[in-house]
């Protein structure tokens, strides 16, 4: 009896795997690309990172049902599906990053460092080193994403705990504060030493400012500079119905990619980027009317995308598996919008922007779609109906691209073969 059961389980597993491979785990991809469901229901998987040996680590927003908040996934038999899944950690968070045998993970306040052994197992899951502690985390934009440069420095976003730095956040008619006091401790990217323990604000440096909230960021090895994706502001129509219609709010402001250098200012909260006028517009909280420009000292975006799509991961592709066009280009995981309501939502896909010599080289395009689980071209109307929401990206040692989902906790593996 037990054997029959095991046999049945095996048959089911084989059928799921087969159909999984056939329908690309439900994803729509360009010709020649295939996807497998590398893992599912592991928990709210935010960012992911992969070691040179192909071991994947996922950071969960909350501990999963088993009480673990960092998950280690290994595909020992190399069939595109993780077969050895373990986990540890009790703190929720977003950021995770691998450098050599160092594994960094973040809570909303702290950055921790774990040591890996030669099999990429964590040597002591109970005692990470605390690299940075006490970063600000209020009830908005609290997640901390991280990346490292080639010099051993770590970059972390500290999101603004506000929509537009109003005196009273999200209160109709409340003015924008001048200067915005939030920018002293948030609304930017901070730089810390990647190894020194127990650093606090004073040990770090505000690397760039005027960024409302960044979740996706990556160090571009070609330009040797930091690129980030900003989440643009919400609710222009709710607070200024005479200046912005629902339809205009659905398209304003653009979601923006910036290349950052030390000292840069991207303009939040004083300005937002209008994708139609292709200009930095003065925010209505600071006297703007949809026509007045602003932000003379603020940098311009490198690329801009439709509004509110919530870019949660950025990855410059350095692998050799994908066709030439993808080399050094940017993949962006769009978590999917909510602030376009009452109009249909957008995002819930992975986009691609070709780059050449460190600069965008062509229009952005949808690379992987279908995460929402809706059929055909049906758009997500209500965010809770989206089956999966892309949140993290990682590049495997063989050049495959992994995408994590923080809704049900799926990890998709996307590969290319001629």
């Amino acid at each position, binding site marked *: 009896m037990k054997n029959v059961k095991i046999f049945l389980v095996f048959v089911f597993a084989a059928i799921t795997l087969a159909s999984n491979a056939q329908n690309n785990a439900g994803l729509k991809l360009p010709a020649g690309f295939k996807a497998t469901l590398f893992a599912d229901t592991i928990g709210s998987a935010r960012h992911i990172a992969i070691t040179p040996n192909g071991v994947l680590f996922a950071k969960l927003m*909350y501990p999963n049902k088993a009480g673990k908040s960092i998950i280690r996934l290994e595909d020992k038999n190399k069939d595109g599906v993780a077969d050895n899944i373990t986990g540890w950690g009790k703190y929720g968070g977003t950021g995770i990053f691998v450098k050599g045998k160092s594994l960094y993970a973040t809570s909303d306040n702290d950055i921790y460092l774990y040591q890996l052994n030669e099999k990429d197992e964590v040597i002591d899951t109970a005692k990470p080193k605390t690299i940075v502690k006490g970063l600000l985390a209020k009830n908005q934009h609290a997640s901390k994403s991280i990346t490292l440069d080639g010099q051993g420095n770590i970059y972390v976003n500290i999101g603004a705990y506000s929509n537009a730095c109003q005196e009273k956040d999200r209160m109709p008619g409340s003015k924008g504060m001048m200067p915005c006091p939030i920018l002293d401790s948030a609304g930017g990217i901070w730089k810390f030493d990647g190894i020194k323990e127990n650093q606090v604000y004073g040990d770090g440096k505000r690397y760039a400012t005027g960024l409302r909230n960044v979740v996706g960021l990556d160090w571009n090895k070609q330009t040797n500079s930091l690129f980030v994706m900003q989440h643009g502001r919400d609710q222009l129509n709710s607070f200024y119905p005479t200046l912005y219609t629902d339809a205009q709010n659905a398209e304003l402001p653009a979601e923006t990619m910036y290349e950052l250098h030390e000292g840069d200012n991207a303009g939040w909260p004083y300005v937002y980027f209008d994708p139609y006028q292709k200009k930095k517009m003065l925010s209505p909280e600071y006297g703007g009317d949809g026509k007045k420009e602003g932000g003379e000292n603020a940098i311009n975006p490198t690329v801009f995308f439709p509004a509110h799509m919530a870019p949660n991961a950025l990855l410059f592709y350095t692998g050799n598996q994908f066709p030439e066009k993808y080399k050094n280009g940017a993949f962006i995981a769009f978590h999917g919008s*909510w602030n376009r309501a009452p109009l249909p939502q957008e995002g819930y896909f992975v986009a691609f922007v070709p780059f050449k010599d460190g600069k965008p080289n062509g229009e952005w395009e949808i690379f992987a779609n279908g995460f929402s689980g809706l059929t055909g071209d049906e758009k997500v*109307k209500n*965010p*809770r109906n989206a089956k999966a929401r892309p949140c993290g990206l990682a590049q495997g040692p063989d050049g495959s691209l992994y995408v994590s989902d923080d809704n049900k906790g799926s990890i998709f593996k996307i590969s290319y073969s001629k």
Partner: protein
Amino acid sequence: MNYIKILIGSFLILGFAVNVTAQDLAKGKKIYETRCLVCHQADGGGVPNMNAPLDGSSNVVGNDLARLVRIIKGGYSEKIALDGMYYSNAMTANPDFKDADIANVLSYIRTSWSNKATVVTEAQVIAAKNKK
């Protein structure tokens, strides 16, 4: 005994029928669409991890009217744990709402989607405000 219950029950229903009309519910729907839908969405489902769902929320269909009135009028920005999930974002305050507006929108969200709670009268909103 049962008769009395039924009697009281029908009085209650009659009472609401007198005080909360279909027109009030329509007004509540209109308020919802212009002031709440952007965050809580057309299906009342909210946005996972961010804007709390109103559909199926044990708080929304619950009896703590004072809390619901306070949240709608004054906004809310504390992380809330609801039915096993966490939500954190700042909810816009609605200082311009009259008691009747609050009653209408509450009636609407308590009886829409899968919610099947009682409607709320203006008098109940006033009583809830005085309770704290």
